[in-house]
């Protein structure tokens, strides 16, 4: 569709584009990225013919662009830019009808029936028919951009060039606009070549990307190139981390601000408060902790400040536990968006709270344990979920700095320590009559203050891993002892 060979061009004397090769295929959504001043708009202007080509050539569907007349070019290529200034009070419909310019025939070229049909269709697609008689300047920015898109589509182009089409649109209008374009690309085979600023948006919509840096391409290829964060750091000079979208497999990027983040100056032992009642235990930290958990709410890896364990009756109807937890937290004025929520049928007065220091690392463990539902995970017998009191909820807080890998590692260490505690307490799976490895509904969270040196490992081969093992083992053992005592005294 668009072929660019060894292109050099830009403003006279100093070329901004220095030797670019590019091939954009029919029906493709191609995104052009790069920092301001890297030459993106210049490349566009070379393609539209607004700036002179110094060296190299550009072909539009096989034809050298200098051989195309302006009208022929306008039938092939439509352009949508970010600015939307229209003098005089032209109505939306009149603006859209200007897109028919290259198709109009005759001496005093009027709009034909065909022209009107196209205008109607593109206004329908872009959902602007209702504004047709309203002056362009009276509608909102997002609507204006849709009108200009309709105008571009009215040209019935094969290629759509977009220069930051969503630049000053809000999230809603950005996604609306891009969905519309994507739909048009997929259903009509429209080729889209767009300058985009937002890397994450580009990752979600583009089929391929090119990264422009100082007038040259650093990278051309599919969006997985965004995984090369070192390259992005070089181009944008911002600390960019690779993240992941919870539902879409395209890479998503997270930018780290350059300014110095104030570190909490309170010591670990003073940075939390424990609030304990018959109904719940609530541990609240001054600062969010990097937390990994399998809690009913607040699961996965997140930054969280509130950690709650709620008492429920053993006959609790757990059809919507997450909703219940949110309701309870709201009742006690705990912001559930920043909280991990667990539940247990164990008496909360049997909670074990340990604050210890291992070789300079402060740790806090909060454990409630019941073993009524103890399970040996390796046994073949399948235990039914019984309605007895039996779950081990472990919360572990560490004053250290873990990578995400270390976080998972710590999670493993804590689990191993819990199993060891069950072994040493001789807790058995009632169905298989073998030593249990846990209960059927255990919850665990590991929260890190992320202070100090970053640690990549927290397994049993490391000091911190050992420390996790010891504190979780001791706390779990003590909690099980308390549970067993209570069961026996009943």
């Amino acid at each position, binding site marked *: 569709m668009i072929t660019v060979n060894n292109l050099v061009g830009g403003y006279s004397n100093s070329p901004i584009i220095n030797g670019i090769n590019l091939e954009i295929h029919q029906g493709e959504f191609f995104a052009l990225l790069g920092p301001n001043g890297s030459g993106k708009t210049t490349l566009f202007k070379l393609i*539209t*013919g*607004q700036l002179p080509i110094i060296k190299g050539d550009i072909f539009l569907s096989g034809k050298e662009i200098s051989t195309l007349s*302006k*009208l022929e*070019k*306008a*039938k092939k*290529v*439509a*352009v949508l*830019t970010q*600015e939307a*200034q*229209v*003098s*005089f*009070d*032209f*109505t939306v419909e*009149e*603006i859209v009808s*200007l*897109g028919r*310019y*290259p198709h*109009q025939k005759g*001496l*005093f*070229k*009027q709009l034909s029936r065909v022209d*009107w049909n196209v205008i*109607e269709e593109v206004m*329908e697609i872009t959902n602007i*028919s209702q504004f*047709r*008689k309203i002056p362009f300047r*009276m509608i909102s920015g997002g609507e204006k951009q849709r009108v200009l898109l309709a*105008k*571009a589509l009215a*040209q019935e182009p094969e290629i759509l060039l977009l220069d930051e089409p969503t630049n000053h649109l809000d999230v809603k209008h950005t996604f609306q606009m891009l969905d519309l374009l994507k739909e048009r690309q997929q259903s009509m085979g429209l080729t889209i070549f767009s300058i985009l600023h937002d890397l994450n948006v580009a990752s979600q919509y583009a089929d391929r990307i090119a990264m422009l840096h100082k007038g040259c391409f650093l990278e051309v290829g599919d969006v997985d190139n965004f995984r090369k964060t070192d390259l992005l750091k070089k181009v944008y000079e911002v600390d960019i981390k690779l993240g992941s979208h919870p539902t879409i497999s395209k890479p998503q990027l997270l930018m780290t601000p350059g300014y110095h983040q104030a570190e909490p100056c309170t010591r670990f032992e003073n940075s939390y408060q424990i609030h304990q009642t018959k109904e719940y235990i609530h541990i609240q930290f001054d600062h969010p902790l990097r937390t990994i958990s399998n809690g009913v709410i607040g699961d996965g890896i997140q930054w969280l400040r509130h950690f709650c364990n709620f008492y429920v009756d053993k006959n609790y109807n757990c059809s919507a536990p997450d909703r219940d937890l949110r309701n309870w937290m709201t009742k006690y004025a705990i912001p559930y968006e920043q909280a991990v929520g667990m539940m247990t049928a164990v008496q909360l007065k049997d909670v074990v709270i340990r604050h210890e220091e291992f070789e300079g690392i402060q740790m806090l463990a909060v454990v409630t344990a019941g073993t009524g539902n103890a399970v040996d995970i390796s046994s073949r017998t399948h235990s039914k979920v019984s309605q007895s009191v039996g779950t081990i909820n472990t919360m572990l807080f560490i004053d250290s700095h873990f990578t995400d890998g270390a976080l998972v590692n710590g999670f493993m260490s804590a689990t191993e320590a819990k199993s060891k505690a069950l072994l040493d307490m001789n807790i058995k799976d009632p169905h298989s009559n073998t030593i249990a490895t846990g209960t059927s509904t255990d919850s665990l969270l590991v929260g890190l203050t992320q202070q100090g040196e970053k640690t990549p490992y927290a397994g049993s081969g490391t000091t911190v891993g050992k420390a996790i093992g010891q504190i979780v083992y001791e706390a779990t053992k003590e909690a099980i002892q308390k549970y067993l005592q209570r069961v026996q005294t009943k």
Partner: protein
Amino acid sequence: MKESRLLRSLFIQKFLINKITWLYILSGGFVLSTALLGVFISSVHVPVPTILHIVLDNTFGWGWLNEVARNEEMIIWNIRLPRVLLAFFVGASLGLAGAAFQGLLRNPLADPYTIGVSSGASLGAVIVLFFQFTILGLGNFTLPIVAIVGGFISLLIVFGLVRLSSRSLAIETIILAGIIVSSFIGAVVSLIISLSDQDSMTQIIYWLYGSVGLRGWSHVQLILPFMLCGSFILFYHYRELNALALGEEAADHIGVDVKKGKFYILIGASLLTGAAVAVSGSIGFVGLVIPHLVRIVTGPNHRHVLPLSLMVGGAFLIVADLVSRSIIAPEELPIGVITALIGAPVFALLLIRERVGGERR
């Protein structure tokens, strides 16, 4: 749903076409009635049937009266009718040129005098009046011809300035070059006035005020080809004028040859302006107000703004001329004074009305 929407839009289109058609009919009626009024009313009373007889007899040979006084025929055919026609042509040229300049320069304050063509034409005329010369073979045409040439020389200077300072005929540069040329020529005109004796000074000042009186058929014949030519060029480029409202870059993107379009529109509008100034002096306000007035009624689409500005501009100048010669008859007021006296308050009213209407929307 889609069907009905389409139907409705077709209906709206039809309704709009009707509205526009009515506007054309109304404007046509306005032109015709003002023209008739212009011919009928004057300080010298001539009965209406006699006037009609003279006009029809001279144009189509359809006269029915046997005896018409010679002096009445002289007054109607050689003085009043060409005066009305000239007023129409000048007003039409200025209205159309104003609409084109406002569209081209994307500036509602632009008028036919913005880019200096009229100053050039004025200077040509002032030079003729100052030196009191006639070019051999031109006779009474000397002044308008020299004025037109002056207008074109100034247009060339403006183009030259624009070309030297920017490669792409940028709008801002055109306006600036126009202002530079106008103010320079204005200074030269003032210099000439200050150097001239009482007699020619009066003549020059009176000419500068503008008038369509006492010009005769020769001036009508002179302006007509320029007007036809300029109008054709502008009508042919109405879509380019519309597209330019998006800005030059966006116009280029939809396939408009912006540079060529701008060049032809400038030429067309300058032809109209130059010729109008040459035959009548610089009559203000028509080219500024009329296009605005038309736009308020029709919307900004140049397909209708251009022809309607032509018609309404012409009719407006006939009225202005009628007022200027009848208000303190048999004396005459300069027509430029009347256009400004009528035009400015009308313009102000329209502005206020549009503002109030715009806020209510």
